[in-house]
């Protein structure tokens, strides 16, 4: 598989260099580690640090910015960042108000962020943690689920809360609440390839798809033949609804996230069905985003995320946010 890289070992460093070279007005590298920070974080706010493996771009590197993360700690391809990296990023963004860690619930990330938070304590920096657990098929228990594209929404709330000047405990409470209200399901259509590897990340027959596949190619719940978009989308929605249990009149934010090679054209076709489905159930879609925020290299497939919203969450969801890959402007009024 062709990848535009120089050598496997240099991928992350060169990627960071390329990112900073593009956006140096707004971002800078954290010296000595694989981390970046946003240059214009407003003073006196709680710092938000996100992180995880490389290979899911634009997450995580592309999600720092106004009303979003202040710093990003990166690991190697699909590997959690080291405690060192997280610590250095933490030190760079701390303004004495403490730092909130947000990351997907994977063993490696948990271990490394936990060590980092102990190291931060030694440096007298308060940290709190919210693990994103949105992938409904990955475990029965909410806390055991893994984190996928819903990350983006949780970060949105966290960034909004921090930008509003709330203290660490409140930012954490709201972020955890966002995650409690978060439900996603994915489907894999074709494997991606990890850079430097010659084999695809998993095998899937040409005419089959897999429901509930994870963003590192983790196995899902079942396979079926490829289906028309509407049928496929409906099945995913039913599976999601089993866990999310959306009620009539409930309000949600929706994210249709592409996994890499699935086109925006296809994602729009999926979104069309999602909106019909919500409408039929009187579920109120407050906002929709169709994009590829959390990818798995060139993997084919997509996920659907619902975040239930109440007035409190809406308030922070609506705080303007901007990075080169995620923007939320002031909400336009509908006619």
């Amino acid at each position, binding site marked *: 598989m062709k990848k535009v890289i120089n050598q496997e070992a240099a991928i992350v460093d060169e990627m960071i260099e390329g990112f900073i070279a593009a956006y140096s007005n707004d971002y800078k590298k954290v010296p000595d580690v694989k981390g970046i920070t946003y240059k214009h974080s407003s003073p006196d706010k709680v710092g938000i640090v996100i992180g995880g*493996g490389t290979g899911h771009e634009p997450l995580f590197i592309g999600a720092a910015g106004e009303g979003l993360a202040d710093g990003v700690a990166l*690991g*190697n*391809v*699909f*590997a*959690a*960042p*080291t*405690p*060192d*990296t997280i610590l250095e990023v933490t030190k760079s963004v701390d303004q004495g108000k403490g730092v909130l860690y947000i990351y997907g619930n*994977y*063993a*490696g990330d948990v*271990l*490394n962020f*936990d*060590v980092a938070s102990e190291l931060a304590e030694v440096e007298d920096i308060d940290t709190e943690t919210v693990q994103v657990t949105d992938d409904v*098929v*990955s*475990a029965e228990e909410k806390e*055991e689920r*893994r984190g996928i594209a819903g990350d983006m929404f949780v970060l949105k709330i966290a960034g909004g809360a921090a930008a509003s000047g709330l203290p660490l405990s409140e930012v954490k409470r709201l972020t955890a609440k966002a995650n409690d209200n978060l439900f996603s399901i994915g489907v894999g259509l074709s494997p991606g390839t*990890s850079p430097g*590897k010659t084999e695809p*990340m998993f095998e899937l027959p040409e005419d089959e798809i897999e429901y509930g596949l*994870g963003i*590192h*190619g*983790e*196995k899902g719940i079942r396979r079926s033949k490829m289906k028309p978009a509407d049928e496929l989308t409906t099945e995913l929605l039913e599976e999601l609804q089993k866990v999310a249990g959306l009620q009539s009149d409930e309000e949600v934010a929706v994210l249709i996230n592409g996994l890499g090679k699935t086109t925006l054209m296809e994602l729009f076709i999926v979104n069309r069905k999602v909106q019909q489905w919500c409408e039929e159930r009187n579920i109120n879609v407050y906002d929709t985003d169709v994009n590829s925020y959390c990818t798995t290299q060139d993997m084919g497939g997509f996920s659907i995320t619902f975040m239930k919203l109440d007035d409190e969450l809406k308030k922070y969801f609506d705080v303007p946010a901007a990075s080169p890959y995620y923007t939320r402007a002031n909400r336009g009024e509908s006619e």
Partner: protein
Amino acid sequence: MFLHIGEEIINAKDMLGKIDSEIGDGDHGAGMATGAEAFTAKLQEASCHNVNAVFKVTGMEMMKSMGGASGVIFGTMFSGGVKNLPAKETLDTNTLAAIFGESTEAVKKRGKASVGDKTMIDALEPASEALKKAAGEGKGLYDSVADAEEAANQGVEYTKNLEAKFGRAKTLGERALGFQDAGATSVWLIFKSMRVWMEKNE
């Protein structure tokens, strides 16, 4: 000795990666090799005065360089056993047993896994027990390490019959059956390289 461990880990990169890819994400070999390169370089440049320092530097370098689950886990395995240990100039069975006894506890505390969860603990804990037993029996260092290697090996075999409770294989359920755990394999490899090194350097 640690340089030899490093070499063996680097040589096993593809093998470990392949094992991880069956039920994990396939990066365990690359991760361990990165760690091995880092601690090898550090051990070569730094002059470590005692056993404690060697273990500590090895663990710290792994923790610093690897990332992923195994960076913390193997980092803790090496550096977590010497924290409370009085400085030792030479390695004997008692010292090694004490180090791995402590480090097993440290890894378990850090990772919250126990025997039967299909992690490296399934190799580390029996290996550590074997060392303790060998120390009790007054065995020499070579024989003790050979016992630990054998215990770790059985632990690796044992992981084949387990469903995973941690790491990326967690969601696989029964489908993880029949495959050995990558981290457990690394533990066995580490004891094996210790023994082979001693064999060569006796």
